[in-house]
């Protein structure tokens, strides 16, 4: 098989459109309409509670870090602040981008904009890239959010635990957006009517960073950047750790989320930071179900899904060797068995879509 071309403008994307793999009908577990309506119901309460806790903790940790600046005691405060800034912002960005976290639209939008800024994503662009990620999850050449391409670039993955690759991509992109508008690739998934907004948002982000850097220079201290900007680096590890598990080592170019997404059981702190996105198969199958209802959804459909990984460590212990095997063989992926109660994978359909058999493990 030819090497994968992940460019949205390349031949793999065009082939996916031609074969019907793009924008295909995905597999869904049957859930009675009444039950699904109940699961989809929107509430403000859980997200308000979590947002007050999140921003309250961030303010407290930042104040602690500032008060103890200059002593080693400030380190735990900055580490805690960093993980909320550089990782919890990823899940808030995600949930509020879907518009499911809160019932009240302006609350979703406000947290979405703040989180987009902290996680260094242009809020006007990423809304669209994420829509594409849901339409064409891990379809090569179509999905702009493939975190681990094949063969995996391990050095980049490791660097990104400190946000380095993301930030290196973000800086030229936000400057391009601010001064020239969307890039050519972004124009493939952002509608033209939104291009001015892409530029407007970028200008706001650039202005805030410019002001923060100016303040740091004036103060002769890195402290302002400890509050704004740098935590995206030293606090990124948690969202990268959980994010890699979403699809890492699993199938690509399939239309069944049970083959390309992973559900992992997490400890309560990680679940708060990650806002229940560890139920990732469930989220992709039913993106309208808010984060707070995902554990309930999981209980209802788990008979139809591969067994979840019991912990982050266990999931990594399976994923990492699979990624290493992909170095030598791009076609390799982890294929999880379904329980006897599940509807089987539609191999016939996947073969038709791919033009050849799925390598089974």
């Amino acid at each position: 098989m030819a090497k994968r071309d992940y460019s949205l403008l390349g031949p793999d994307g065009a082939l996916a459109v031609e074969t019907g793999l793009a924008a295909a009908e995905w597999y869904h577990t049957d859930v009675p309409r009444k039950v699904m309506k109940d699961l989809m119901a929107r509430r403000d309460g859980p997200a308000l509670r979590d947002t007050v806790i999140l921003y309250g903790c961030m303010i407290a940790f930042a104040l602690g870090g500032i008060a103890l600046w200059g002593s080693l005691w400030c380190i735990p405060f900055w580490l805690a602040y960093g993980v909320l800034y550089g990782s919890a912002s990823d899940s808030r960005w995600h949930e509020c981008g879907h518009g499911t976290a809160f019932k009240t639209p302006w609350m979703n939008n406000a947290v979405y904009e703040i989180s987009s800024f902290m996680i260094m994503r242009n809020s006007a662009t990423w809304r669209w890239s994420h829509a594409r990620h849901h339409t064409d999850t891990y379809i090569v050449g179509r999905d702009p959010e493939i975190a681990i391409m094949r063969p995996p670039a391990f050095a980049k993955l490791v660097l990104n635990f400190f946000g380095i690759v993301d930030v290196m991509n973000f800086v030229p992109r936000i400057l391009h957006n601010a001064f020239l508008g969307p890039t050519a690739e972004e124009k493939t998934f952002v509608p033209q009517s939104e291009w001015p907004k892409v530029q407007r948002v970028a200008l706001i982000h650039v202005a805030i960073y410019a002001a923060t850097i100016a303040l740091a220079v004036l103060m002769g201290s890195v402290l302002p950047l400890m509050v704004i900007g740098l935590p995206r680096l030293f606090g990124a590890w948690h969202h990268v750790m959980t994010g890699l598990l979403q699809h890492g080592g699993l199938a690509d170019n399939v239309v069944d989320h049970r083959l390309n997404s992973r559900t992992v059981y997490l400890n309560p702190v990680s679940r708060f930071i990650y806002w229940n996105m560890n139920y990732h198969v469930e989220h992709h199958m039913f993106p309208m179900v808010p984060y707070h209802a995902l554990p309930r959804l999981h209980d209802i459909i788990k008979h139809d899904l591969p067994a979840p990984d019991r912990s982050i460590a266990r999931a990594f212990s399976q994923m990492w060797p699979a990624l290493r095997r992909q170095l030598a063989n791009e076609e390799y992926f982890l294929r999880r068995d379904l329980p006897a109660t599940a509807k089987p994978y539609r191999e016939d359909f996947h073969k038709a879509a791919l033009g050849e058999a799925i390598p089974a493990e």
Partner: protein
Amino acid sequence: MPQWIRACATDDIDEEDLIRFDHAGATYAIYHAPDGKFYATAGKCTHEDVHLCDGLVMGHLIECPKHNGQFDYRTGEAKRAPVCVNLRTFATRLDGGDVYIEVP
């Protein structure tokens, strides 16, 4: 030539919910609003080829099940990204316990 066709019985749709209705190769969505009125729109989202019948009705909004785009189903107006193009709407009327829609 537009014609009125029977889509469903009024009690086929819970209040604040919708169902899918297919007719002559076209697909429609029929809504039962919280105020008791019935509405009809095209059955598929204008963003991508996705049936709205699995979506969520909230007041007078229908949220698409794929990317959470929203429309006001009374007017078809696109209300939330990623939908940008309005949804086509169709007139409805009630006759006895049945909902009729006017199709082209």
